[in-house]
């Protein structure tokens, strides 16, 4: 009987605490806009536009496979305070972001709310599957290839979208964001000219990649991806496919295998031994290596790696 009383009191106490906390005024963030992004590339772009008026943080790290991020509660603490959430979309984050958004208890960033920004809506999307889509093709993305940020022109389009969004959220700073966008556009155009010039001698060169992460990159820089180490997206390499791939590479004279930093190098290395190709680790995201601190350095790094590999395997 006494224990029953104590129980009731405990419950009442817990309820009271919850209610008390509920009435606490939410802690007001500083005047900076709080932006969370799914990946580091979107964070880099948001930082370019937002400058010192925003606080940006990415959920995934640059060296992490963006398909398989864990929905850790520590991210909830950050999402709860976010004013804006920028996502890659195209179901890239389907395995981890929806529960984070639901549990964040932040109305601002719920799907469809003004603080939910899907960058894919502003970008040129490739590899939108045609015909019947089934998982016989592996972990296929029915809405198109979600690795679209690896094209500077898409970077520019996303930045434009972010500029509009930030201006809408902070009309007083609209001119600041516009000026930052203009500056970014100018720099990206200059850099793009430089990158295209650097890649020009290798136009049409064929490569093999581990995952289908590079269609936008390949299209922009005029290289050709002829095969993948994965037999299907998301399916680990199989012996038959590896044998077929080696045959293909020999026939087509492919000498470069590009691997994302989160994949095992064992199969690519053994393919390289068979075919005399060179394995390079290309970074699909900002922050993949310490020196890749912004969107420009991402292309600088990847192009330098590719150039070197093409030179060595002439």
């Amino acid at each position, binding site marked *: 009987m006494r224990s029953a009383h104590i129980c009731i009191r405990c419950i009442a106490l817990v309820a009271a605490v919850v209610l008390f906390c509920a009435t606490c005024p939410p802690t007001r963030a500083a005047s900076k806009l709080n932006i969370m992004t799914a990946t580091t590339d979107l964070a880099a772009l948001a930082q370019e536009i937002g400058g010192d008026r925003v606080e940006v943080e990415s959920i995934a790290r640059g060296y992490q496979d963006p398909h398989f991020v864990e929905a850790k509660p520590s991210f909830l603490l950050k999402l709860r305070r976010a004013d804006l959430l920028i996502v890659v979309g195209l179901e890239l984050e389907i395995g981890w972001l929806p529960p984070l958004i639901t549990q964040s208890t932040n109305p601002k960033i719920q799907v469809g709310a003004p603080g939910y920004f899907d960058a894919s809506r502003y970008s040129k999307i490739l590899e939108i599957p045609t015909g019947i889509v089934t998982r016989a093709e592996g972990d296929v993305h029915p*809405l198109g290839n979600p690795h679209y940020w690896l094209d500077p022109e898409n970077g520019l389009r996303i930045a434009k979208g972010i500029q509009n969004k930030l201006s809408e959220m902070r009309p007083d700073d609209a001119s600041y964001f516009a000026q930052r966008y203009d500056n970014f556009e100018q720099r990206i155009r200059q850099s793009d000219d430089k990158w295209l010039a650097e890649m020009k001698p290798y136009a049409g060169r064929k490569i093999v990649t581990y995952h289908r992460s590079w269609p936008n990159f390949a299209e922009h820089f005029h290289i050709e991806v002829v095969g993948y180490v994965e037999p299907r997206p998301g399916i680990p390499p199989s012996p038959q496919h590896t044998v077929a791939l080696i045959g293909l590479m020999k026939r087509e004279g492919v000498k470069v295998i590009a691997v994302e930093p989160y994949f095992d190098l064992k199969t690519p290395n053994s393919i390289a031994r068979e075919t005399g190709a060179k394995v390079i680790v290309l970074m699909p995201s900002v922050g993949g290596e310490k020196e890749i601190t912004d969107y420009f350095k991402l292309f600088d790094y990847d192009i330098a790696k590719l150039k070197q590999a093409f030179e060595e395997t002439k």
Partner: protein
Amino acid sequence: MQGPETREFSKTYPLDDAMKRLLSLSACVLFSATAYAQERPLEAETKRTPETSSPTAPSEELRIKTLEEQVRSLAEQVSLLRSELQVLRDAKGAAPQHEGRVLLASSHVEPGMLAVAPSATSSPRSPEPVPAQIAQTQVYGGATSNAKLLNPDISLIGDFIGTAGRNTVSPSRSLELHESEVGLQAIIDPYARADAFLSFGETGVNVEEGYVTFTSLPAGLLLKVGKMRAELGKVNTTHNHALPFIDRPLVTENLVGGEDGIDDAGISLSRFLPAPKNWFFQGTAQVYRGDSSDVFTANRRQDVSVVGHVRLYRDLGESTNIDLGGSYARGHNHAGIGTTFNPENFLSNLYAADATLRWKPLRRSIYHSFLFRTELFWSARDQLSPRNVFETQHAFGLYSSAEYRINRRWTVGGRFDRSGRATNASLTDTGFSGILTYWPSEFSQIRSQYRYGHLWDITNARFTNANEFLFQFLFVMGAHGAHAF
């Protein structure tokens, strides 16, 4: 564990009063909260309108600026469209075999956009001034697939289990399609989403869970209403197909209602609680009807059960984290029904603690990971002793398990079980299991498990050994939403 203690009940105690008060209080809060959440966006709208439409000079300038922006982006789009059209024409000339294909691309258009896009051209204060819908230029077969856009995500998970070996205490069938779980998940409106999981078993259909989650409540509250697995530790909230083993631990069987667990119709309210920096602290309070397997039985309408849960989490670095939880559940049981005692006086109290340590290196997350978990349960159940005396039976149970992902396709694991029985704490079952899982892809699993048990055989009134070999095939069709971490 402890000896049964006897009690006498001469008068009804003031539980009902307190419970009623608590209930009515929480009901008030819930209603006001929902109402507030639904009104708030409207307020925001009305606040925004005068701001933007006020004829002051700066906003006028801003409007012109945004219009200019739009014109510029439209011009960009036109040129893009032109170039794309050119490319398409070229491509068509070169490859006529692509004609007549059906594209799924249209599902790229989000439902909300259908309404937004036309208004964007007419109103300058549209939130998204005509995003560069480049992808849409590649859409051909739009209208038909658009019709299905508002369907929920539908999935089916098949769970096929085979058993061999000896178990006289709780024998399962040699082969069975243990469960087919159909999941329907969708966003309901700007304020809520809903998840329903229907479980088709060998004996019938059961709504495993079906609840609506209100995501836009004030003060950081998260409200769930419907039938749910109660937040009593970890394993009770987990669906069959998401378990790290083929079966559930012995302690679930003995103390927490078996496979269905504490799964009942109710209301759940949770909130982040203040915590030191970098600690995640969450509290959840739930009220259920009070009918869950053989754990709780509501004889009267007011015999509701309550569940409370707190969760404490911290990252110990980018790869490692620790997750702690404490839970409490209380409700009426059926021990007093059909006896000379008042059934209202028979209560079950459950206390639980859980701890999880996870390790997953970010660079190699798909190849290696490790998880250690242990859960402890204490049950205090009011019942009649064999000599018809009122007593409270205190039983304790636990399990500890570990899983290690060896590479992209293989996972190994082990589990130790020990648990008394809720109705007779002195009978303690013990067991251990080893499991090997093979993943052909993310969407299927093949597993085999060896299970040993030292179990109490009621019919023969003695302990017997069970040695079993289980195997399981799990497969996922369709889009099954991600589970909470």
